[in-house]
């Protein structure tokens, strides 16, 4: 079955520290990959996405993610976190058109707390 694994459930960092959140997926076909963020008390919103092309994807707020096909991974990174990055981060996978779709699978989420 298709699944998404996020290795870190809770991460605590100080401001200006670098961030890397791990994400692996199990589906072997062509996939679209996403990172969503949920700030405290708010709904999920898209941080960045990968469909094809350059495996290094830049998103909003200085976030980036790298797709490594051989490792089935899509790790999220930020060189220097801020207090305002405190949130829950979700990795997600959707299959490409023509292969089903309509079903975005989410990882269990990683709760990031940034100390001021």
């Amino acid at each position, binding site marked *: 079955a298709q699944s998404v694994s996020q290795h870190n459930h809770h991460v605590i960092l100080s401001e200006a520290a670098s961030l890397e959140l791990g994400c692996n997926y199990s589906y072997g076909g062509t996939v*679209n990959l*996403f990172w*969503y963020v*949920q700030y405290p008390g*708010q*709904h*999920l*919103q*898209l941080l960045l*996405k990968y*469909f094809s092309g350059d495996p290094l994807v830049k998103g909003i707020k200085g976030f980036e993610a790298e797709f490594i096909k051989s490792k089935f991974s899509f790790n999220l990174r930020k060189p220097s976190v801020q207090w305002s990055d405190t949130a*829950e981060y*979700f990795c997600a996978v*959707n299959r*490409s*058109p023509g292969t*089903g*779709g*309509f*079903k*975005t*699978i*989410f990882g*269990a*989420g990683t*709760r990031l707390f940034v100390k001021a």
Partner: protein
Amino acid sequence: DTAVSQTPKYLVTQMGNDKSIKCEQNLGHDTMYWYKQDSKKFLKIMFSYNNKELIINETVPNRFSPKSPDKAHLNLHINSLELGDSAVYFCASSQGGGFEKLFFGSGTQLSVL
């Protein structure tokens, strides 16, 4: 303008009751979804509708019945509520099958006492 709006924001009710959550999107999207987020923040798809047609039903108990009167609305009715139904329910929409991205509503926090 709120793109995906759901009501109510909070819902507190007793076991055994029947309740509904409403969702509307003004983005002109074809596809709408219900997701359930449990206390550990795990987000799981429940239903997906495309142009009012049910596409995905993820082994959700029959007590949960989605209804889509038109492609801009997807309501969720829950019969005989149980303690385990307590969660945050998110409505979402997308153009097509979610290959681009999902737009989420602000969530409905359901507490069953």
